[in-house]
């Protein structure tokens, strides 16, 4: 092995060159945490937290998703740019869904008004029935 290659391998610590195997303990720990959080979210769904239900469920999902991304997908040790690309996509998803919801609810009252003025509309549809 030549000098340059040796220096490069030393720079990345150990005999595996550029590979960074994740310690098995971490993988087992993350898997156990994910299973516990799954049980927690199922149990939590049996209780009524009112409007907070969805946020509790999404909070647990976010923690689980972060564990998967950081440890199973190696982002914790990875080049920061890969994580940046990932987070950037979530940012654009938030803009997308957020703005569509804003837009939808801006027009909701006029749709409701139209439905009130046309009580027979939509009754032929498969789920047709009383407007609620």
């Amino acid at each position: 092995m030549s000098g340059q290659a040796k220096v490069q391998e030393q720079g990345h610590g150990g005999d595996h060159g550029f590979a960074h195997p994740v310690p098995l303990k971490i993988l087992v720990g993350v898997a156990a945490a994910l299973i516990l959080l799954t049980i927690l979210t199922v149990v939590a769904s049996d209780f009524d937290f009112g409007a907070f239900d969805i946020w509790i469920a999404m909070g647990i999902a976010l923690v689980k998703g972060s564990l998967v991304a950081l440890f199973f997908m190696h982002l914790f040790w990875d080049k920061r740019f890969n994580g940046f690309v990932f987070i950037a996509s979530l940012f654009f998803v938030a803009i997308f869904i957020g703005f569509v919801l804003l837009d939808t609810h801006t027009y909701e009252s006029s749709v409701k008004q139209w439905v009130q003025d046309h009580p027979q509309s939509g009754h032929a549809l498969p789920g047709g029935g009383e407007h609620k």
Partner: protein
Amino acid sequence: MSQAIDTIHGAVDHHPHDSQVAHHFENAEQQFESAKLGMWVFLVTEILFFSGLFCVYAVYRSLHPEVFLYAHQWLDKGLGAINTIVLIVSSFTMAWAVRNAQLGQKKALMINLTLTLLCAATFMGIKAEEYSQKYEHGTTWGASFQPHPDAFGEVHGGEIKKEDMPRNTQIFFSIYFALTGLHGFHVLVGMGLILWLLIRAAKGQFGPQYFTPVDIVGLYWHLVDLIWIFLFPLLYLIH
């Protein structure tokens, strides 16, 4: 020509696995990092692709919460939870397989890839069982939504009353089948990719200097798991 390149790039090219390094890369590490960044960019397009359906979900649920509250009772929370755990276990064996490939552990790599494949098949089996339940109950998408009389009453430990059914209940099932269908399709594609890895692993093609395919298929597989982690509470655990 290849000798000339060897001379230019000199020292780093004297490794038994160097046949896997394309000539336009400096070394195996640069090639790996490039492939991984490319995979992340692809995963971003996948996230944006799914976000269209998540957006549909958000719009309909915010406009018609009563439909979601009522219709989700037809989904089997128990099967959904089991499937979530099956996918988590498959993600674990996949992450372990990446470690095996990096350490050149051929036998362990093949075992973990096989376990991942079995978990994926279990997931699809349970999904198929759920789909056939929906078909038998007549609780399918759009205009095909015609719940049979036996779809009402005692279902999955709760009671579903026909007279309580809100208008446009079929929308829930359109969204359910679109989201779980697209996700299930990704699981099938993942199974094909893992099978491909298994064949290459059997040929002894992966080791510390070349494990890129295992790593990036792993990334894809974890993303499929990640999406299910959000789908499960959104569809099965509505309160």
